[in-house]
């Protein structure tokens, strides 16, 4: 089973759309797919799928301890099933860190070829950890400064989280903390310098870190493109991610702005169904093909 995670910092960039499109595309290729709406702040996947009042949701997992596999619902798309998000949770802050961790532990036990996770906005630890554990890591941006800035912050957090997790593993955590605190004195001004410093400090770290880099391979998607110049912005972001954040990145493709898409929601059919939104559907096909042409990241 392979896990796909869709993240990328800012809200409203189209993570849910991409997650939904990937799930649908995989299902259309004959795979059994489960979409999991882990966007606690804004669960929408049920609406994308055309389920108006889902009978169960992640609220049941969090509040009533219903096992995950019992919450999988059919959608109108053959092969595509859904675990709706916490749509009935009145206070999303009440979902604890431990509960989120438990959710991700249970994901691997689901019976499907692919599990596609809609991670939602932000750079919380659970979002970052899930992203890092996924086999396919997808980042979504819009071609504008606000989205790009938040995307970089997401990646920076991701990199530091990866570093933090690993430093605990090699017993360097306290030393690294002290180093970071006095970073000015050591001439460290960025994550890149910091990692370089740690590599010089500990050969064991250097080896582990090199291995760990294989766990991160970013597929970048640009959403809501209105003119080709904006695709070029996306390509520039891709190059910058590689050069300034040292993250292996591939450009998976872009989706044009669709001014009519909003009309597809709130009905009893999937919003991205082929007959509803041909342009988005076709673009998603290309993106999925590009991602599947790469290797999934190595298992932990």
């Amino acid at each position, binding site marked *: 089973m392979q896990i796909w995670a869709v993240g990328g910092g800012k809200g409203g960039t189209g993570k849910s759309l991409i997650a939904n499109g990937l799930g649908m595309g995989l299902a259309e290729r004959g795979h059994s797919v489960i979409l999991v709406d882990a966007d606690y702040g804004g669960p929408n996947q049920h609406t994308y799928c055309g389920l108006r009042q889902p009978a169960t949701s992640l609220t049941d997992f969090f509040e009533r301890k219903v096992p995950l596999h019992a919450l999988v619902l059919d959608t109108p798309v053959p092969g595509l099933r859904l675990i709706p998000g916490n749509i009935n949770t009145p206070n999303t802050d009440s979902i604890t860190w431990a509960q989120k961790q438990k959710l991700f532990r249970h994901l691997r036990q689901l019976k499907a070829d692919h599990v596609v996770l809609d991670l939602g906005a932000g750079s919380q630890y659970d979002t970052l950890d899930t992203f890092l554990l996924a086999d396919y890591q997808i980042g979504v941006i819009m071609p504008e400064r606000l989205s790009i*800035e938040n995307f*970089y*912050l997401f990646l920076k957090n991701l990199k530091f989280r990866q570093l933090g997790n690993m430093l605990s593993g090699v017993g360097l955590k306290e030393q690294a903390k002290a180093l970071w605190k006095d970073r000015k004195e050591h001439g460290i*001004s*960025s994550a890149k310098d910091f990692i370089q410093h740690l590599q010089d400090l500990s050969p064991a770290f250097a080896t582990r870190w090199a291995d760990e880099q294989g766990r991160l391979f970013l597929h970048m998607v640009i959403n809501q493109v209105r003119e080709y110049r904006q695709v070029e*912005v996306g390509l520039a972001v891709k190059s*910058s991610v*590689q050069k300034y954040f040292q993250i292996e990145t591939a450009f998976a493709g872009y989706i044009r702005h669709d001014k009519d898409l909003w009309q597809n929601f709130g009905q009893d059919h999937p919003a991205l169904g082929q007959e509803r939104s041909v342009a988005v559907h076709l673009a998603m096909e290309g993106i999925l093909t590009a991602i599947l042409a790469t290797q999934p990241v190595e298992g932990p």
Partner: protein
Amino acid sequence: MATPNLDRCRQILEVSPEATREEITSAYHHLKRIHGAEPGLAIAASMEEFSLEARQQVMAEIEEAYALLKAIPTEAYVPEPEPVAPEPEPDPLEEVPGDGSSLRRARTKAGLTLDQVAQETCVRREYLKALEDEEFQDLTRLAPVNIRGYLTAFANTVGVPADAIVPVVMERFATWLRLTK
């Protein structure tokens, strides 16, 4: 200095190991546009990752990688094909297979008169004649979509593959329009 790691250079220029000299040059210019000038949209100027020093270092790496790759002898690349002399421009209205006259030939071969084709296709005789003779001035009252439709019907009736002939005649019609404007 150790042998320059050309794989690493290609990685910096974001090209494949099979990249040709031309691809390398164009990748270099592409990267220079992104990382060389003033911080563009792709750079989040407020982040320490994109400090002036960091950007200068990135650009220096790009320059160095390009210089090293450029220094590889040309033989090391896949030979580029010899430039081919361009074909002389044909007269746009010179008779070529697939024009209106081939509709007449096909019609005659099928033993059909223009009137019979007109009856079969429900297209007026004079339009069919204008198509055959490429008397495009007689067609200017029509919308291109209608001309296309008449042509398709004509071709189907006289047994000429419409896919082959329709685009050719339409292209010639467009050229005629351009030249007579």
